[in-house]
């Protein structure tokens, strides 16, 4: 046996509460991130990721409290991200009990924060989140791909997918690895929310260009999609939110499905 593929439920948190459609009968308060973290952990999740979608200054204290509460109840690794811009903010999160911190906009605006964090805490704590989207306006110097007769490049977006940066996602991924990132959380904006499956092309391209672990995110609508992305790329982990938010797809069942599909998972 060798290293297993990781299955990572993602919890979007606003003002210290889990948001997005949740349908749990077994949990009285589905919005409580601590209860959900415990539930996922017990079901066999390999890691958890919390993304603070409010991410404003006022919520920093809320997040710190949340992180230490979660750290007390689970004994698997977890990452916290969303609006992390400064070294101090990242430090707060890590010292409150998170194992890794994910930075996105903060890393694009101020890439040296990646190196500073790596030097202080080690690269295993530093996850760079990259949100990428196809841009059909071809530019010189970008890595160009085609699907059918359409040609495009992958552009990095920041501020929760709202603002393009002009950065080529493949080059940016190579760059963050050099700067000291220990892992990449790769979200396809094109596939996110579609439930049509992960972005195979984007994932393959990035995974083949870096030698740090990559987490695929965006587009997972059913367990088959996880089998597909693990078979079609050498990606290390798959993140999903909505499929775990219904009890028909508990983490455990998803992993059993993956095992039947020939994917090495921890069961």
């Amino acid at each position: 046996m060798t290293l297993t593929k990781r299955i990572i439920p993602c919890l979007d948190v606003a003002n210290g509460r889990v948001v997005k459609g949740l349908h749990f009968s077994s949990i009285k308060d589905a919005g409580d991130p601590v209860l959900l973290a415990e539930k996922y952990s017990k079901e066999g999740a390999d890691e958890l990721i919390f993304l603070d979608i409010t991410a404003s200054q006022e919520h920093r204290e809320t997040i710190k409290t949340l992180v230490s509460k979660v750290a007390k109840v689970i004994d698997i690794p977890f990452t916290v991200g969303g609006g992390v811009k400064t070294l101090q903010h990242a430090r707060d999160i890590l010292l409150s009990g998170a194992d890794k911190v994910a930075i996105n906009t903060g890393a694009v605006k101020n890439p040296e924060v990646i190196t500073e964090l790596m030097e202080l805490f080690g690269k295993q704590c530093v996850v760079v989140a990259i949100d990428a989207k196809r841009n059909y306006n071809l530019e010189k110097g970008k890595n160009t791909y085609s699907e059918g007769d359409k040609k495009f490049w992958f552009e990095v977006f920041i501020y929760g997918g709202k603002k393009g940066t002009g950065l080529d996602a493949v080059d940016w991924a190579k760059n963050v690895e050099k700067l000291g990132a220990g892992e990449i959380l790769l979200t396809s904006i094109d596939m996110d929310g579609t439930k049509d499956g992960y972005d195979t092309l984007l994932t393959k391209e990035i995974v083949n260009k870096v030698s740090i672990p990559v987490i695929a995110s965006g587009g997972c609508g059913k367990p088959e999609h996880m089998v597909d992305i693990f078979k079609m790329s050498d990606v290390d982990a798959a993140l999903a939110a909505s499929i775990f938010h219904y009890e028909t797809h508990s983490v455990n069942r998803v992993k059993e499905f993956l095992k039947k599909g020939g994917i090495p998972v921890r069961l």
Partner: protein
Amino acid sequence: MVKVAIFDYGAGNIFSLKTSLEKNDAEVDVITSFDKANNYSGLLLPGVGNFDPAIKSIRDYSKTDFADYVSDKKPVLGICLGMEMFFEKSEEGKEKGLGVIDGEVVLLPHEMKIPHMGWNNLNIKKQSKIVEGVKDGSWVYFVHSYRVKPKNTDLIVADSDYGITVPAIIEYGNFFGTQFHPEKSGKIGSIMIRNFLRECKK
């Protein structure tokens, strides 16, 4: 209640380790030097930070020597970097290691994905107090870029397959080391934490 100390190098999350020890009924103090009262039944060197600064914080900032503090009786659990420091030297830094165990620490081969991050199996090679109740093949959580190479390979209690063989658990007298993170390895990790605390009680 058994009382143990976690040595804090000053740069990392030791919260999870502390929580894990407390959940298993230990009283835990976080210490930053070996100069204060030594009334602990065991010492833990956590697995966060970098080799050189961590070694310096252990070696240079206390009047009391690490070897004197620990003697040959106090159980010590080194996790990840904490275990790597037991050795003579590491490719991660320039400083000398603690030199408790003969051998060195080397970077994982470049053709592998580094860090080795995630859940991998333990191949238990021999019995040890630390793996009592742990089944061969159990899953534990790794996150590391270096691996240890003890001169005496008999010290290796368990290893793990990452394309190359990674020593996962080391035992040498009162020194126990894990390359993975027991505090992040669910129930299996908790068993090993309890086994270590049981040694501390003796």
